[in-house]
């Protein structure tokens, strides 16, 4: 289980329309645990309907043990966590924060790193660029955004990467050409992408077609748990029955009932939270990026951090 520490919001900054940056410090002022570029933390947000836990990539300097920085984009039509951070969160408030974990680490043996960000996907890319610059590694950054005004953190990336940064302003019709970007790269190159799903898919498809082995194409994407029908979960080991309302994830509902369940990314990516489904009287709605189509078809597995049932009651082995 990931340790949780109590933190204070030390600073908030509006860095672009709809994007807000937060500085978090340990509530007791102590030094923070170390982390590596590409890591994320999980914020516990005290929403009216109960605690919501959302993952955010760290954008700051891993060498700075006094604060953690995140940048949050307001997600319209989401479950309210990002809206709460934009509208309600204020300096001085306290939050429960799960310590950093890294599902998007850099490949230490690479000879060159190509970092690619789409939109708010710049957050883990920035921390990678910072660490690579410090280590004196060979890298370059490609940053695509909707328009100049939305290019949060562009100046900061520019200061780190200098002429190794290339910007793509979609409002000027510029877009990342993966074919050109990935072709003819020297052996030992690794590429990393954080961005929207169509970009992730193009990256992997084109890289694979150009003969890049899968372990050279790194991507990170978290899913925000989509709302759905209310349903109930029966926990087989305790017999407990938990109600999951439309705007809560199954994992959050189980935790709110006082049962601790495994998790890491809370974004459907890592596989840590996987539960066995023993019985279900309705269809499962899989929203994760982890389970294969075959496993899903079997109907015996679910990732409760993002997936749910379409009404009725399911029984899980927990």
């Amino acid at each position, binding site marked *: 289980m990931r340790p949780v520490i109590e933190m204070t919001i030390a600073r908030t900054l509006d860095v672009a329309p709809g994007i807000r940056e937060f500085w978090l410090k340990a509530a007791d002022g102590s030094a923070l645990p170390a982390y590596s570029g590409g890591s994320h933390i999980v914020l516990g947000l005290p929403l009216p309907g109960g605690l919501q836990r959302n993952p955010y990539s760290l954008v700051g300097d891993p060498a700075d043990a006094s604060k953690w920085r995140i940048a949050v984009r307001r997600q319209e039509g989401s479950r309210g966590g990002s809206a709460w951070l934009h509208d309600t969160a204020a300096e001085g408030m306290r939050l429960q924060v799960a310590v950093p974990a890294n599902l998007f680490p850099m490949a230490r043996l690479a000879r060159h790193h190509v970092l690619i960000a789409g939109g708010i996907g710049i957050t883990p890319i920035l921390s990678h660029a910072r660490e690579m610059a410090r280590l004196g590694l060979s890298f370059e950054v490609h940053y695509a955004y909707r328009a100049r005004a939305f290019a949060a953190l562009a100046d900061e990336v520019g200061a780190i990467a200098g002429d190794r940064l290339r910007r793509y302003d979609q409002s000027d019709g510029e877009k990342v050409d993966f074919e050109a970007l990935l072709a003819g*790269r020297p*052996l*030992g*190159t690794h590429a990393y992408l954080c961005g929207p799903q169509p970009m992730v898919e193009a990256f992997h498809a084109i890289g*694979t077609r*150009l003969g*890049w*082995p899968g*372990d050279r194409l790194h991507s990170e994407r978290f899913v925000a748990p989509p709302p759905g029908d209310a349903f109930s979960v029966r926990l087989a080991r305790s017999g407990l029955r938990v109600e999951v309302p439309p705007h809560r994830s199954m994992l959050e509902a189980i935790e709110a009932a006082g049962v601790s369940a495994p998790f890491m990314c809370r974004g459907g990516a890592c596989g840590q939270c996987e539960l066995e489904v023993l019985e279900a009287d309705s269809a499962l709605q899989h929203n994760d990026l982890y389970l294969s189509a075959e496993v899903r078809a079997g109907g015996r597995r679910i990732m409760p951090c993002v997936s749910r049932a379409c009404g009725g009651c399911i029984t899980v082995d927990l």
Partner: protein
Amino acid sequence: MSAAPPAIKSQPQYRGLTWDASGQAHLLLLAARDDALLASLLGALPSAPIRVIDCADALAAFSAPAALEVTRAASLETALGLLDDALARASMGLRLYLAGPEDAIWQAHTIAAAYGMGRREIRLCQTGSLARPVFCVHCRSMTRHVRTNIVPCAGCGRALFVRDHFSRRLGAYMGFQIDAEAPGQVPPAETVYP
């Protein structure tokens, strides 16, 4: 896949050699003559460009198809130099195939690893002599072409027992002094790696 499991997990297991169709260019190093292997490789050529570095006259019995760009090398050392040059100019998408005795293919592997190539880009096939490269754990020098279970270290002269313990990083089997407990008592060496 029905081969018996290796006695020690670190000992490399080699299967036959086939082309990797996901490659966009192929580079084959031949360090032993193996007509059956070559016949199977030449019988199923992939469409992407293929370069061959041959330091064992391995293509002697074949009229190599025009699609192959073949370079003959007089020695393994020359071949490894050519390999190094080729990798320096190569791009992502290359697949490397190494066929020959372990001493040759693991020296080539070390060069490829230094260019950042990984397991999914390199295929190895042991053919020809079973002689082993042996790394002395005491003086850290390499003794090559070892055919016996006990061998004097080329660096420090200790009598080394050749273990099945293999280091991918060093590309060699580990050799330990056999008479450390009872100096001078070295059993006769037997040829076990012909």
